[in-house]
């Protein structure tokens, strides 16, 4: 949730609504989408107690579990009893869940997100019974609950929802009387696809999350082995076996977990991550070798186990007959490069930049690890609101206080000392005032100046309005 909401809930404000530093401090952790996704997959595996087929919804961010409970309800005493048991089990895990039960994935998603909101008790959700060739009056009768839900319940892109709302189409039921060909021409195939999926006219598959034990291979040695070459040979064979299992299901591994059981010691473990799902034994073997080189085995090894803890569907890309030299966005060579670099330098060292709309320069971006994601790279907005020289290419991790400075009568800097050198300002642009909101615990109030010295060097400096000190924050390298 947003930080301000968390602080309000944890009562971090004094009687006047200002942030209070006397109350017990809130522990803040940055959001990690990779760990979040991993935790959700573990939850999906835990849900196998309710259904053998559990998957994650295809959405960003992922926050919905899909369980196929066809024919299972009688085992739990009926649909209501199943609903109750699921909700209670989640509550015991300190998790609040909203449940939607229907005979299509789309309808169940819609009910869970829009019908069950605000209900704390397991609710008696009517199952929607439709058939693929139902006429409009039959649909209205069978799906009355679904048709009253808002358009957003169809999992449409925000742009289509906004257009439909502007046209006065706010409920799912408003779409049914409209001619299908006109809807398709106006909004594309996505709208009709989602509508058909919700009404059961088009099937939708749940991509099953396998329990980790499904992709595990193990080798038990008759006698403990210390020779590195034998260990490497065994690992190579295990990887080939694992890749064969993955390929049979059309999957590739995103993360492999290795466990080497030692004779009289704690087992040695390490992990290998991939940028894209891979079932290439050669590629995974090379990444593993890089990790093995750094591993020191104090005792002989008695067994080796490799488990694919995260995996995803392999993407198939047909090669073009007349392939030119232009670089494709999702090049397998670049993916392999990313995997190798992440294997040697660590997952956190190979990142992509994501711009954030935050006034404070240090928080105007974040880095996201490339390896360990869902395998797809969502396109983020990289449009900058600044012109070329509004922001420097290099920013100091922490602003450096200027050793001495002189300020002109209009408040702009005229001279300053930095790095043992005296600089005289010949031109400046600014001030650009940057202030953060009152809800930020350590807010900033700064007047930034771009300065060009008489020697032609350009720097980004600011005056802190809180203590009137001057700092250098970046250089236009």
């Amino acid at each position, binding site marked *: 949730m947003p930080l301000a909401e968390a602080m309000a809930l944890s009562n971090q404000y004094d009687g006047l609504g200002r942030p209070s530093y006397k109350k017990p401090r809130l522990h803040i952790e940055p959001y990690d989408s990779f760990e979040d996704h991993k935790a959700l997959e573990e939850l999906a595996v835990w849900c196998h107690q309710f259904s053998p087929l559990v998957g994650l919804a295809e959405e960003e961010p992922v926050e919905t579990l899909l369980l196929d409970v066809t024919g299972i309800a009688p085992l739990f005493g009926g649909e209501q009893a199943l609903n109750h048991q699921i909700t209670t089990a989640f509550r015991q895990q300190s998790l609040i869940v909203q449940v939607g039960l229907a005979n299509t994935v789309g309808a169940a998603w819609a009910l869970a997100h829009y019908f069950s909101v605000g209900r704390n008790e397991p609710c008696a959700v009517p199952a929607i019974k439709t058939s693929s060739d139902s006429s409009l009056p039959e649909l209205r009768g069978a799906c009355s609950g679904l048709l009253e839900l808002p358009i957003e319940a169809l999992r449409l892109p925000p742009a289509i929802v906004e257009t439909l709302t502007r046209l006065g189409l706010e409920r799912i039921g408003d779409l049914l009387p409209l001619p299908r060909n006109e809807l398709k021409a106006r909004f594309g195939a996505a709208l009709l696809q989602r509508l058909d999926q919700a009404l059961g006219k088009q099937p939708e598959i749940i991509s099953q999350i396998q329990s980790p034990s499904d992709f595990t291979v193990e080798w038990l040695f008759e006698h403990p082995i210390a020779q590195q070459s034998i260990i490497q040979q065994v690992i190579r064979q295990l990887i080939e076996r694992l890749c064969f299992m993955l390929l049979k299901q059309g999957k590739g591994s995103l993360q492999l977990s290795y466990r080497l059981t030692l004779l009289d010691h704690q087992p040695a473990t390490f992990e290998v991550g991939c940028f894209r799902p891979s079932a290439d034994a050669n590629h995974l073997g090379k990444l593993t070798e890089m990790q093995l080189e750094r591993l020191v085995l104090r005792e002989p090894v008695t067994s080796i186990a490799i488990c694919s803890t995260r995996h995803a569907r392999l993407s198939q890309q047909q090669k073009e007959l007349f392939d030119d030299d232009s*670089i494709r966005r999702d090049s397998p060579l670049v993916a392999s490069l990313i995997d190798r670099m992440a294997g040697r330098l660590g997952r956190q060292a190979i990142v992509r930049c994501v711009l954030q709309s935050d006034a404070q320069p240090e928080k105007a971006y974040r880095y996201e690890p490339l390896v360990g994601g869902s395998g797809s790279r969502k396109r983020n907005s*990289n449009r900058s609101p600044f012109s070329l020289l509004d922001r420097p290419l290099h920013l100091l991790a922490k602003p450096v206080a200027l050793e001495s400075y002189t300020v002109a009568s209009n408040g702009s800097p005229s001279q300053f000392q930095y790095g043992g050198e005296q600089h005289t300002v010949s031109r400046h642009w600014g001030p650009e005032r940057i202030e953060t909101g009152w809800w930020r615990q350590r807010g900033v109030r700064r007047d930034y100046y771009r300065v060009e010295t008489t020697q032609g060097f350009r720097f980004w400096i600011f005056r802190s309005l809180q203590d009137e000190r001057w700092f250098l924050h970046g250089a236009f390298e």
Partner: protein
Amino acid sequence: MNHKILQLRELLNRKESEKKPYQSIFSGCLPLDRLLPQRGFQQGSLVEWIAGGAGSGASLLAMQAARSACRGGGTLVLVDRAQSFYPPGAAACQLDLQNTIVVLPAGEQDECWALEQALRCPDVAAVVAWPQRLTSHTFRRLQLAAEHGGSLGLLVRPAAARNESSWASVRMLVSPSPRAESPRVGRQGWQVGIELLRCGGLFGTKPIEVEIDDQTGEVRDAYPRPLAAQLAGTAPDPRKARA
């Protein structure tokens, strides 16, 4: 003697172009391209920008070249050991961050390894890095990696690197121009001097002065030559002409 030198220079250029079947890439700076024999940087080569100090503009020029190299949707790899690269500044330079991979190595060895790996990858269009120290042996490895992969390596080095040996095919010193007491009328942008220290068969050419437009980022001649003089090929020094 001059005739002999010109012949040798042509022979050298021919031999080098035989080795490198790669295209030349617009450097992002038209005045600089006019100086370069291939009218741009060669794919599969290293380009070294030596910064005349903090705030000299060397990285900005390197980014312009990187943007040009990645114009066809290619991948850019940035190796940033100091972790001082500022993505919003790069986005303001219209760099496509979606196709940019940032590598944050912990030490020098990892930095050189990452550089070599990235240069070797055929699908990486350009690699930008700020290595502080490069031994001759490592530099040679990077040059071979660039040749092998066909990437353009753009290395921004500190001023102290000027006296070190280099395997870059183009080596430039970038230093901003001091602001005169009475500035030239109409001067709006950031004036920066580029001295071509080495390029193929060229050595010690006259430094050029370019102006970076503050708004558009266009890099142009700081002292544009009159058209007639351009056509004639022998342009008078504009400063003497005004005097």
